[in-house]
């Protein structure tokens, strides 16, 4: 499987990031001003224009390598949207995309740190650790930043995890009675298609959680609530058959890459 590369700094894009969502609506406009509109969901696309500057030769080579492997705009690859949350259903922990261990109780409708009621309470009723994870169709060896708001009525310790089959990275987080955004940046060495993010609770722990987010970078951005579409675009293409490089000095390259992903 092909993936759009990260730069050596662990990011996918540089500022400014230009993004365009496009849909298609068939409209019949009547003389009275009344409209009859029908959506054509098969035509929905998202496109990005990524402007890179000061790329090293190795960074440009990785872009060029993908461009050649994809044969321009012929074949598809996976692109991780740098301005989105890679997790789906970020406030629906009971959705099927989240795999919870059987003795982990989930209570919904808890007050969250942003003033809503999108948080949940996890209670581990087992005598061993229990976890809840979501697997993304993303490369396991990329740099990721995971973040989540946590609180507990009594001081507790939980673990955030990033895992692929055969390797996992765990970080311990101490939580108190006020909401704290726990941040965990990591990358695995194992090269696999698919990576999981999750939360692991020790026996007897009860914690409130809100706003899980995974981003393909080293530091967290603002929290973005997701539903049935997240930032993993598995059907992305280059929007052009040519890739032009400008070199200003040794190891200082710049280029602009246009990508498009069909949402159907």
């Amino acid at each position, binding site marked *: 499987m092909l993936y759009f590369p990260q730069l050596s700094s662990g990011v996918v894009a540089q*500022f*400014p*990031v*230009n*993004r*365009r*969502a*496009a*849909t*298609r*609506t068939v*409209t019949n406009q*009547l*003389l*009275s*001003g*009344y*409209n009859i*509109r*029908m*959506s054509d*969901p098969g035509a*929905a696309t998202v496109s990005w224009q990524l402007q890179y500057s000061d790329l090293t030769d190795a960074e440009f080579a990785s872009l060029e390598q993908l461009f050649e492997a994809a044969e321009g705009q012929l074949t598809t690859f996976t692109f991780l949207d740098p*301005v*989105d*949350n890679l997790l789906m259903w970020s406030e629906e922990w009971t959705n099927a995309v989240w795999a919870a261990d059987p003795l982990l109780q989930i209570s919904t409708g808890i007050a969250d740190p942003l003033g809503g009621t999108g948080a949940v309470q996890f209670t581990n009723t087992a005598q061993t650790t229990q976890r809840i994870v979501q697997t993304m169709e993303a490369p396991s060896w990329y740099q990721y930043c995971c973040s989540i708001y946590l609180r507990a009525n009594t001081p507790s310790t939980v673990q955030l995890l990033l895992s692929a089959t055969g390797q996992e990275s765990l970080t311990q987080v101490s939580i108190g009675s006020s909401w704290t955004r726990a941040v965990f940046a990591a990358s695995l060495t194992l090269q696999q298609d698919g990576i999981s993010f999750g939360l692991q609770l020790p026996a007897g722990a009860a914690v409130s959680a809100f706003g899980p987010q995974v981003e393909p970078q080293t530091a967290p*951005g*603002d*929290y*973005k*609530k*997701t*539903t049935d*579409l997240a930032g993993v675009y598995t059907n992305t293409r280059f929007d052009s058959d040519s890739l032009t490089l400008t070199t200003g000095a040794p190891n200082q390259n710049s280029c602009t890459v246009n990508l498009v992903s069909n949402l159907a």
Partner: protein
Amino acid sequence: MSNFPTLKTGATLQYPAQKATQYSTDVVRFIDGPEQRFRGYQSPLRRWVIRLDLLDQTELHVLREFFRTQSGAAGTFSFTDPWDGTVYANCSLADDQMAEQLKDEEKGQTTLTVCENGT
């Protein structure tokens, strides 16, 4: 029916803001000079151009998700006119495209046009 999202400040739009009122008049002119005029719309239709700048990533994401759930111009939603507080219950986005730019972490910008639908 959904509502057009507001920013974290509670505002819907930023300056410079633009609002238009649209009538549709059919004019029949006769050879000898007089004319007859016919009203096309039952009531005038409003249109708002919402230019937003200096948005943070959450605000930009909320607008992006709103565009997606509306399927561009296909959906309908309720829009409160920021000038006078009037609620227009039957509005749509005017375009099937939403372009956005994130210049920096807290410097997102986009423009959406909301139009009132005739009845």
